């Protein structure tokens, strides 16, 4: 009997330390956003492994939102009320993240968004919502700054998909070019998944812009560039903001992707601690190059899990620790700060890159550059 009591006592004492940290993940694992969602899934899986090695016992509850905000929301309700998770990492898209953010605040569950770009998400003063990646305005400003430092563009055309991500990125870009004295000559949004952009691109071509600024997810990016070549759209530079222009698939289409300038949250040649190693291990494990989403998700899960453990699985303490903490890892220095109207936003350094000979090369800022930028865009062959 005494032995049993002893065992029971021991378990009671040890449980809080051994107890698995229950953390929710909301991600687009199926549906049209799944190709990028997969990077997030893999990043988190790698984080789970590394955390185990460090002795952080993790129990992940996976939820698939199929890229739809309403499913994302019900996933959040389930995680918050039924699963009683300490915190949530995800979701992927801006639309889903924005919908879930308000619920996180309602249920007081710390939410760490790894890679959604819409600014508004962390601009609503929500105390429980944290974001790892730089928001949309950074995409726009770093790309336009890069173009302005490379040449003397006077006009710009915008073409973007009519989703949260597309419209918010291009809106901030339009505000930004106004301060730089660059004139907007075309401003076109399109519903994603269209098969034919030729007429739109021909219209843009007739305005002869110096810069063409595009915001698209994976497949549309390839289609847009292919059809730009078809209609002979020839600006000084193609600027691709985010998602679709920073994938391996896009770089592989060398005939149309070479010399396109894009910006990213992360590359594996940047000298942030562990970035190279993360890239190599990711490639060995999943047989693919990681995108920035993978690194964002990895870093987010590490931070969320370690903070949750240090706070003994308490939501309030976890939130406070996320707010006051400071980390340095694969994403460089991370701190969730309040600035420029943002709340709990990591002021992340964006990297400007160009596809040169089928490879992404960092061209700006100078301290991270691997190659010199090619400007203006060479004539189509």
């Amino acid at each position, binding site marked *: 009997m005494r032995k049993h009591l002893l065992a029971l006592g021991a378990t009671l004492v040890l449980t809080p330390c051994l107890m698995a940290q229950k953390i929710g993940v909301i991600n687009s694992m199926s549906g049209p956003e799944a190709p990028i969602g997969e990077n997030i899934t893999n990043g988190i899986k790698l984080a789970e492994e590394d955390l185990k090695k460090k002795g952080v016992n993790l129990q992940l509850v996976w939820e698939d939102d199929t890229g739809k905000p309403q499913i994302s929301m019900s996933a959040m309700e389930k995680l918050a009320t039924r699963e009683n998770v300490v915190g949530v990492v995800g979701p992927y898209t801006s639309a889903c993240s924005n919908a879930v953010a308000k619920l996180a605040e309602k249920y007081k569950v710390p939410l760490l968004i790894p890679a959604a770009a819409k600014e508004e998400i962390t601009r609503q003063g929500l105390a429980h919502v944290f974001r790892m990646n730089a928001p949309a305005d950074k995409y726009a400003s770093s790309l336009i700054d890069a173009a302005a430092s490379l040449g003397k563009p006077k006009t710009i055309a915008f073409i973007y998909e009519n989703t949260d991500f597309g419209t918010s990125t291009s809106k901030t870009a339009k505000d930004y070019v106004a301060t730089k004295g660059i004139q907007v000559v075309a401003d076109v949004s399109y519903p994603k998944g*269209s*098969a034919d*952009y030729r007429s*739109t691109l*021909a219209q843009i071509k007739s305005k002869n812009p110096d810069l063409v600024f595009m915001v698209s997810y994976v497949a549309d990016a*390839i289609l847009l560039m292919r059809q730009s070549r*078809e209609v002979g759209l020839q600006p000084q530079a193609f600027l691709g903001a985010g998602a679709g222009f920073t994938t391996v698939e896009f770089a592989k289409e060398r005939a149309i992707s070479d010399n396109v300038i894009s910006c990213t949250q992360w590359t594996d040649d940047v000298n942030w601690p562990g970035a190279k190693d993360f890239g190599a291990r990711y490639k060995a494990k999943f047989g693919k190059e990681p995108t920035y989403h993978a690194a964002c998700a990895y870093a987010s899960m590490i931070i969320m899990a370690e903070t949750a453990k240090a706070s003994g699985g308490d939501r309030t303490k976890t939130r406070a620790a996320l707010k006051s903490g400071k980390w340095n890892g694969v994403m460089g220095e991370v701190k969730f700060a309040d600035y420029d109207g943002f709340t709990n936003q990591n002021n992340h350094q964006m990297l400007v890159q160009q596809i040169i000979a089928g490879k992404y090369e960092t061209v700006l800022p100078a301290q991270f550059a691997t190659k010199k930028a090619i400007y203006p865009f060479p004539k189509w062959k």
Partner: protein
Amino acid sequence: MAVFLQSLISGILIGGVYALIGIGLTLIFGVMRVINFAHGDILMVGMYLTYMIFTLLGIDPFVSVLITFPLMFLFGGFLQKVFINRVLDALAQNQILLTIGLGLIMSNTVMLIFTSDYKILSTSYSSATIKVGGGVSVSTPLLISFLITAAITAALYWFLLKTDTGQAIRATAQDRDAAQLMGINVKRMSIIAFGLGSALAGTAGALISPTYYIFPQVGSVFTLKAFVITVLGGMGSVVGATLGGVLIGITESMSAVYISSGWKDVVVFVLFLLVLLFKPSGLMGKSRT
């Protein structure tokens, strides 16, 4: 002017492929009165088939139509014989549920096999163009696929108008019971019609794969489009579907330029509603009362 011509030409070329998708759906509806909500997914299967033939055997997507067409015909015939045939007399909503279910099974099976990654079929001519002059250029792959579409449509017209089987299909579409009384094997006609419809959808998939991208959920975009084209043209009318397809292609292309890309679907659906308001049976449809 160049912009106008450019968008008119791309509209017509894209419209040709839309027509092919619409004809398949309208054929199936005409003969069986079943709305095939798996139509887009059948198209997606055609795309993956083309992709596999291209990557494994190295056969050009346009040439592979010769393989895709008969294979998709068999696939369609199989679907009709094993599944659709059982619900021909069932309530419309049950038929719809069945086809939606079949579509889901197809897209999810493909996702299990190929993962959800976007596949891009890159041929040497994927972004090649022919300059027409006046700043207007025509996409080579789109032009080829339009020509193939036109040839297939012409062959289909000939088949439906001139051959015995074709006439039997049309008879079944006009009045199933009367056709049966006249000694037509309506069950076989149904299998042929569904096979043809699937083959047309699969071919459309093959034709757009060099210029579009391939992923398991790509079907839903086209199911909706096919549905609009079919209803616009008149349910069951092959001529109507051809017309509807080209009309929608041009409308999309024109409204993208002169109104806004973001609003082009709205324009298409407004046009669709207007046609339904003033001619509820569709452009070429005869009302069935």
